[in-house]
């Protein structure tokens, strides 16, 4: 299971590199959206490893509110573009 976790961390580093490298705001938003859902899933995965279900609840909250926050940010960026 630890090997799987290391593979997940590696899978999360790629969008981080992409978010760092790219200048276009929408490519950066794509990378950040990908990072947020991966982080939520990793939190759930770790809560299974540790059998601590408060962390599991945090993972479920990250999946829901994290994506909702990104949606609001996307709309704000769109309005800023319109100005």
């Amino acid at each position, binding site marked *: 299971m630890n090997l799987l976790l290391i593979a997940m961390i590696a899978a999360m580093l790629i969008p981080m590199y992409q978010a760092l490298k790219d200048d276009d705001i*929408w490519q950066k938003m794509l990378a950040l959206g990908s990072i947020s859902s991966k982080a939520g*899933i990793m939190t*759930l995965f770790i809560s299974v490893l540790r059998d601590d279900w408060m962390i599991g609840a945090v*993972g479920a909250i990250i999946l829901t509110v994290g994506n909702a926050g990104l949606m609001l940010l*996307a709309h704000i960026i769109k309005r800023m573009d319109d100005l």
Partner: protein
Amino acid sequence: MIDVLSYLFFGVGIFFWFWGTSHLVGKRSVLFKLHSLSVADTLGSILIVIGLLIKIPSRWPLLTLAIISLAIWNTMLGYVLAHCSSDEAENQKEFPTETL
């Protein structure tokens, strides 16, 4: 048998993750990346959570909640990002530029 099945789900899920992010690094348009990324992320993550569900069935309420919120919110995020990143005039209905 249960362990083998859950590891199979984990493996396929992580493969989808890597496949989705490999498209992210290329030089393609936002919408192309968005499609492959949201498909890979959502599907891969759901497979991983199903793998967790098989491994620990006693916690099915929380894991089912994670699957549902993933399926809804990740897809919705894809729509919103596609809508907001597109510049065509037909998307400017909510806020006509002269009112801003």
